């Protein structure tokens, strides 16, 4: 029986569900706290087993751990390439657009001045999003120049490496909900509506989940979005634009599934564990 490894840095409900599912399937999972890993170019394969589900809540920790695991020749889900593409919104949007996946109109600017010029030309409202980040943090509607100037000021003070790159997106005219589709190996496994009374629908911000039947259109779009970023295990987020139909606005790399599990009968952790086991090199 192959040994599956679940690499984590915070043992959330999702990692416990994966552990229990792997145990139930007889894989005797290796639970590895990424914070305890010390490794190098001469490291052996221990303690990662035959395939790894990378589940770190810290994006950069998980990304670099994946690089190490791939160096060892062990399959990791998601791959370093997929994690790289999904962890940066500009890279992700570029992949979606290049693959012809419908996505909101998005503008990239590479200085504060260019961002201001872009906003003035395109008009308000817009949504500004940090390149790296999740749970809706730093996602802000920009309704006028004053709001944009405030963001630019904050970023100029902080001046992190991503702060000089601006990702501005149209404010999509949609119902107060979006759709999350979990895909495993390109196949939609489960979906939910995420609803909130405000601008953001993230469950991490107290959005609520509702059952969602996966329509053929959702399934096809989710599969295309998965393929666009390189496949694996993903959370594909869609909005229902009132005139254009479904738009994919995000593809998530280490998808959380505690919330969606409450509104679906699909065995999400079972599908993930089965997918990872299928990657074990013979």
């Amino acid at each position, binding site marked *: 029986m192959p040994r599956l490894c679940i690499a*984590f840095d915070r043992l959330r409900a999702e990692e416990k569900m994966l552990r229990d599912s792997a145990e139930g399937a007889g894989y005797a999972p290796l639970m590895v706290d990424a914070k305890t890993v010390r490794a190098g170019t001469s490291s052996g394969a221990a303690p990662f087993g035959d395939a790894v589900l990378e589940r770190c809540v810290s*994006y950069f*920790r998980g990304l670099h751990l994946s690089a190490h695991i791939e160096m060892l020749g062990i399959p990791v889900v998601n791959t370093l390439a997929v994690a790289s593409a999904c962890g940066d919104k500009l890279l992700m949007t570029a992949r979606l657009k290049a693959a012809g996946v419908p996505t909101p109109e998005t503008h990239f600017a590479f200085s504060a001045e260019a961002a201001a010029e872009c906003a003035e030309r395109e008009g308000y409202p817009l949504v500004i999003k940090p390149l*790296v980040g999740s*749970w809706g943090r730093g996602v802000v509607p920009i309704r006028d120049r004053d709001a944009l100037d405030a963001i630019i000021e904050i970023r100029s003070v902080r001046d992190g490496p991503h702060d000089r790159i601006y990702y501005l997106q149209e404010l999509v005219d949609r119902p107060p909900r979006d759709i999350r589709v979990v895909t495993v190996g390109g196949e939609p496994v489960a979906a939910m509506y995420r609803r909130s009374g405000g601008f953001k629908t993230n469950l991490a911000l107290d959005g609520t989940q509702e059952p969602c039947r996966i329509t053929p259109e959702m399934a096809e779009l989710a599969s295309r979005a998965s393929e666009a970023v390189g496949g694996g295990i993903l959370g594909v987020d869609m909005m229902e634009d009132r005139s254009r139909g479904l738009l994919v606005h995000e593809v998530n790399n280490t998808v959380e599934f505690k919330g969606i599990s409450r509104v679906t009968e699909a065995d999400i952790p079972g599908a993930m564990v089965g997918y990872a086991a299928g990657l074990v090199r013979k």
Partner: protein
Amino acid sequence: MNCPECDAPISVPDDAAAGELVACPDCGADYEVARSGGSLELKKAESIGEDWGE
């Protein structure tokens, strides 16, 4: 076990897995369960980072 911050007693289930979080009921500090040689320890939990998420 006692809270390293405020010394209040913290109840940690015997079957707690390494990496699980517990909070001090008195001061609210978050700790991560660690196992060392079969015994349980509490380590200060990391605070939410800018790159945290899914």
